[in-house]
């Protein structure tokens, strides 16, 4: 089967600065994929290269098997991109914007699909309003609609929920998830890690222009070797044996780090021996955010060690 997106040894240099240093990545058709990384890691640059908005200094990118440079017409018709910036053409209404965008792709009778996306994105009331007078959230919806106007099999969303209210975020994800279920490949970048965790199958983490992690979210989270338990105890009574495990404590609430669940027994035993009463016990699941912070931190310390 052809990959939805195939990235081979992509480098991108801006003058003396390397924005991407040899990125290799393959995203399967039908996947819901997240591209994560701190600001300036190269996520948007990579997306721009996939979309043809930027040209790679070397390396190649294919979308549904079509090279984005030599087969740009096919590659671009396979791809819908929601840009990060709220850009719009102030001369036109929402419907005009969508009809023009559809026309750029050479689609003739696309009105029923345009009506459908207008409906799904709750834009019906605003369809004949000029783009200039829409709120930020509404403009964001139009951007999503524009990316979908030619029914692309691959959809790339560059931080689509930045600065968007909770309700819109929910409805947007419902819609995108629906598209994914219908077979569209979805790639997104986001700063909300819980979003990636809830929606995506796999993630790639970018750091300083390289992919430092590429795995399924389940593996990443289960590989993390640390679990945390939060205990609320009767005042001031954490047994001395447990002090080394404590990573934070606040008004009778202690957070302990353990390496595996079996260690939990030792903790309980120590508490029993000290005759300490447990008022509350909570096991904290590691989440993607923790993985992210750990990996970014590890990459940094590795770097400073080698420097």
């Amino acid at each position, binding site marked *: 089967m052809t990959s939805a997106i195939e990235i081979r040894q992509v480098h991108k240099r801006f003058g003396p600065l390397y924005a991407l240093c040899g990125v290799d990545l393959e995203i399967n058709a039908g996947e819901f994929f997240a591209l994560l990384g701190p600001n300036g890691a190269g996520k948007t640059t990579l997306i721009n290269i996939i979309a*043809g908005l930027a040209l790679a200094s070397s390396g190649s990118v294919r979308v549904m098997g079509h090279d984005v440079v030599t087969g740009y017409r096919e590659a671009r018709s396979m*791809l819908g991109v929601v840009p990060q910036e709220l*850009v*719009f053409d102030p001369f036109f209404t929402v419907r005009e914007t969508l009809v*023009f965008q559809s*026309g750029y792709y*050479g689609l003739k009778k696309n009105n029923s699909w345009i009506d459908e996306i207008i409906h799904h994105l709750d834009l019906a009331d605003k369809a004949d309003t000029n783009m200039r007078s829409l709120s930020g959230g509404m403009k964001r919806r139009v951007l999503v609609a524009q990316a979908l106007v030619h029914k692309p099999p691959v959809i790339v969303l560059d931080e689509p929920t930045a600065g968007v209210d909770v309700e819109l975020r929910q409805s947007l994800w419902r819609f995108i998830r629906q598209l994914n279920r219908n077979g569209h490949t979805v790639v997104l970048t986001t700063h909300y890690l819980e979003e990636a965790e809830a929606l995506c199958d796999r993630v790639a983490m970018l750091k300083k222009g390289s992919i430092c992690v590429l795995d399924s979210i389940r593996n990443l989270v289960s590989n993390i070797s640390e679990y945390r338990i939060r205990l609320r105890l009767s005042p001031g009574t954490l047994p001395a044996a447990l002090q080394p495990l404590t990573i934070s404590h606040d008004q009778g609430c202690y957070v302990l780090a353990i390496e595996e669940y079996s260690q939990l027994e030792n903790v309980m035993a120590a508490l029993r021996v000290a005759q300490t009463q447990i008022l509350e016990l909570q096991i904290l699941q590691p989440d993607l955010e923790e993985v992210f912070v750990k990996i970014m931190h590890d990459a940094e310390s590795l770097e400073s060690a080698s420097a």
Partner: protein
Amino acid sequence: MNGFLTLLYKELLRFWKVGLQTVFAPMLSTLLYLLIFSHALEERMQAYPGITYTVFLIPGLVIMAMLQNAFANSSSSLIQSTVSGNHIFMLLSPLSCQEIFTAYVLASVVRGLVVGLGIYGVAVGFYELPLYSFAWVFVFALMGTALLGAIGIIAGIWAEKFEQLAALQNFVILPLTFLSGTFYTISSLPPFWRGLSYLNPFFYMVDGFRYGFFRSSDVSPYLSLGILMACFLAVSWGTLRMLKTGYKIRK
């Protein structure tokens, strides 16, 4: 509709939606020029024998307005898009460089022709203007507006701020049009300035365009047409290269 026609239609709609500013304002200012210059200079100047100065002036003013508006159309459309960032919608689509180039040039041509036709329409209501050959008039109108439309694409992509574009318009395009023989025939100039005028491509547009009305000109219309075609080919080649390499727009 295919992609090219959509872009062309969008570009036409863009200026037509603000027609007061893009069509009627230049018509008005050109007609004011005509009114004022004809009042002030009618008695004092004669460019061609047997033709009053006002009548001589009309074709020059018409082509000048056409050229300026053709340039303004592509350049302002592109700079507005690149500054606000909405040019990416065009770049994300499968439109080719040639399609983008042709759509912008044609929209410029249409705006130039609409403005020119408007001025001409009003002017012939008041003055008796001969028309020797519609074909020559049309060919020079077409070549001139197409050339300026293409230059406008380069300018719109090159300029990063409105200020830079305004500078180009005020310090390059405007002087070249004013000094191209719009208001005089270059045969009335001292030799040095006449020689310099031959280096100004705008001169050939004005001179050839005027030939279509009066059947007299400073140089042969065939020479003018040849020079303009060469200029258009060179500028088009440059513009297409720019679009192809993504100069400033595909980083």
